[in-house]
């Protein structure tokens, strides 16, 4: 799910919940006995995860496990680079329709189905920054 849906009702149904569970499981595995943690999550522009929903879901899951959790979300701009000709460009310069953005939201790599290098036309480009969800730091005492 993308966009500015209201959190409370929607948070239970959208797919950001699954990503929040992944982050939660990552925290549980990394710090199995911690009762207070801080988790910093990097959110790549390409996947366009709904920050509000992700944060809400993560807090709910942590609360239900009795863990006090500080959530820090960091947006990362998406940079693309062509492996054929070396050209680098920003996702911001690209326009996609709503359908395509939704597809990329679920599986960011399908950007290769909808985008070509603006300079040479190759689809052999890399998302060098700003793909999706990454745990930048879990810290605990």
């Amino acid at each position, binding site marked *: 799910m993308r966009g500015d849906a209201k959190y409370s009702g929607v948070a239970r149904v959208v*797919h950001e*919940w*699954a990503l929040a569970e992944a*982050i939660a499981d990552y925290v549980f595995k990394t710090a199995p006995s911690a009762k207070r943690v801080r988790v910093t999550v990097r959110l790549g522009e390409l996947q366009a995860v709904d920050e509000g929903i992700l944060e809400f879901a993560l807090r709910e899951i942590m609360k239900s496990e009795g863990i006090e959790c500080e959530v820090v979300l960091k947006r990362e701009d998406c940079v693309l680079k062509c492996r054929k000709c070396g050209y680098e460009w920003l996702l911001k310069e690209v326009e996609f329709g709503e359908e395509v953005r939704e*597809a990329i939201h*679920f599986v960011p790599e*399908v950007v290769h189905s909808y985008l070509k290098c603006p300079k040479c036309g190759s689809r052999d480009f890399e998302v060098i920054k700003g793909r999706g*969800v990454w*745990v930048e730091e*879990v810290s605990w005492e």
Partner: protein
Amino acid sequence: MMVAQGDPRLAVIGRRLARVARVVPVMSSKGGVGKTLLSCLLALALSERGARVGLLDLDVTNPTAHVVLGADLSKFPEEDRGVVPPLIGGVKFMSVAYYSGENPLPLRGWEIDNVVREVLAVTIWGDLDFLVIDTPPGIGDEVLDVLSYFPKHEPLVVATPSPLTVTSVRRLLKLLTEAVKGELIRVVENMARDNSSIIADLARKFRVGFLGKVRFDEGVDRAVGDIDALRESRMYRDVSMIAEKLL
């Protein structure tokens, strides 16, 4: 104060598969031996026998299982705390093709690995007796991901009795028998035309199971895309006998 960083998706895979009893990746280093058709028919046949079945197309850069099943790609799967694979012919079917459509999806290996992680992390299978996985030819990221990320699995190796297939399948069986117990690996001969025992012998040599032959069925290509027609094909009857042995 301790600190760690990494990919959260791998951490959740165990939870996603917690209620999946058996994982059956359908494999063969050789292309065109019938992995996709067999995966689809096997999933349908298991489901017809009352099993709760999921089917995952992991041939990421060339998905075709949706063509066999005639799946509707025009809308995205529903979301419910994750992505819920649509029911097709009684089977929960997941594929990257829902998102790539019929466009080309050229990907480098680490991008394929990313797709596999993403799909495994967000797909909500629920309770399954079988998760059947269609895989691509070769031994690249998709196949290594299946072997490395799934806590347990029972590979079904598809072979045809041609010399190039036998070369490829021998390499795959060597790899699989190193990592998985022989009794959990099973070989199926597909497109059998006579009573050659070359594939059965190969299975015996590697001390893995042999589930029998699926005969060459001239009509099956015409049934592609239509589940009812597939269920009436001779190939389906043969695959149903393989399904019985797996149950």
